[in-house]
């Protein structure tokens, strides 16, 4: 009798352990799998639209803008980058800031983005940070270079949306670097968001002018 109880107990423990591990793996897999699939799709689309030869630069930029809005949490990133100054900005300033923020990224990062999502992209692994966020680790091989660039994509999933919230290149986060850059600019403009917007306007105008000349 005792023997039998121990046996049953053992079975039960085993079952419990199995079901628990099953529960955790399915939960972790769902976010990891969707993050990886998400990046795969993005890579396919980017390959299609950004690597076509002979397309004028401004046209490529507009294609990237479309992808950027579709695959990145643009508003969330923009707000986070502005930090505590977001609340100090008027609704009009917030709107203009977000537009300029988008402009700055699409104009200055179109080439790098094409490179990172192109044929050199190799997904190494995907790890869930929690049930909503996963990091996709990738390695980018560049033409004419033996060096491999480590790029981590931080992808966040909510009930209906899945978007990239940060790109970490060789351990350096693009969002953190921008936050530092924008914060410093605001401080040098007397803590005013209007000052930052002014600098952003000039910067994006200059970049666009340069791009359309190419």
């Amino acid at each position, binding site marked *: 009798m005792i023997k039998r109880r121990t046996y049953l107990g053992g079975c039960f423990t085993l079952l419990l352990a199995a079901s628990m591990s099953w529960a955790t793996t399915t939960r*972790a897999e769902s976010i990891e799998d969707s993050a990886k699939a998400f990046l795969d799709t993005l890579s396919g689309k980017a390959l299609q639209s950004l690597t076509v030869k002979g397309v004028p630069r401004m046209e490529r930029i507009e294609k990237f803008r479309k992808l950027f809005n579709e695959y990145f*949490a643009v*508003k*969330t*990133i923009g*707000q*986070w*980058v502005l*930090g*505590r100054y*977001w*609340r100090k900005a008027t609704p009009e300033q917030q709107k203009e800031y977000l537009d300029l923020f988008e402009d*700055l*990224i699409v104009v*200055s*990062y179109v*080439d*790098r983005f094409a490179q990172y999502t192109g044929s050199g992209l190799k997904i190494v692994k995907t*790890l*869930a*940070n*929690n049930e*909503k*966020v996963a*990091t996709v680790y990738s390695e980018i091989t560049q033409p*004419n*270079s*033996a*060096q491999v660039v*480590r790029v*981590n994509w*931080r992808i*966040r999933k*909510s009930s209906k*949306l899945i978007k990239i*919230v*940060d790109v*970490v290149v*060789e*351990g*350096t*986060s693009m*969002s*953190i*670097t*921008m*936050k*530092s*850059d*924008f*914060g*410093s*600019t605001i*401080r*040098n403009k007397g803590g005013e968001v209007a000052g*930052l917007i002014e*600098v*952003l306007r000039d*910067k994006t105008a200059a*970049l666009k002018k340069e791009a359309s000349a190419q």
Partner: protein
Amino acid sequence: MLLAFMQRGREKHSGSRLAIVLLAAILVTGCATAPNPKYTAAVADYEILNDPAEPTNRAIFKFNKALDTAIFKPVATVYKDYTPSIFQRGVHNVLNNLRTPIIFANDLLQGKLQRAWNTLARFFINSTIGFAGLGDPAADYGFKFHNEDFGQTLAAWGLPEGPYIVLPVFGPSNPRDAIGLVVDALIDPLNIWLSNTNREELIFARAGVRGIDERTSNFDALEDLEKSSLDFYASLRSLYRQHRGDEIRDGEPSVNIPMPGLSNIIPGITPDEEPGSDFGKNVASRTQ
């Protein structure tokens, strides 16, 4: 400066005249004014930036930038565009191979035996079948290159980084990394041997080549960063710190890297709210 940004190299012959100019610059420009303690957010910013000598640092940054525009960047451009990439790769490999003793010593000083073994294996493979380090067959056998320096060792030993500083010529640094730079140069057996045989010029030649190699490797990344930055100084300061953190962690992801869409009450980073964020609030993550 830019050349030194990731370089941890060791061309150090700025000389005493430069030191005097620098000292004068520090005395003239002085330090950043600490904010009024009643503005807590401003105080938090000031502490996080960890850049009390910002005006001086900006002045040196400007000097370095001018030096880069006048010398390093043109040289790197010519090197990048007019020499075959296979040659550039060979040079890069030889420099990495010559760095073995420093990397090996720092692997050991940090108690990382696996990495020390990797460094040693690389050296023997690449020095022999890699034709005196020109090739990197070791990487194909799974012994991939990794860098180490004494600045990282000091970090592993628990020494804090200290305030951000910009060194003339070398660029972004901090006291810990500056000490590391000097120690690595002093303990380098190749440097010691060359110096004992009165061939100091070869030490400088190697340092110069290393500078060009590093500047060339970071060429596009720096161009992009400058292009997209509103305040290049601030971007580079942030990038340097993050990059060093990554090197110290040997490329392992940090537990505490904040990111958009996640609340981040993390030491050293401003806690931010995300008003109106469709992603809402969340707990900082750590499962791995």
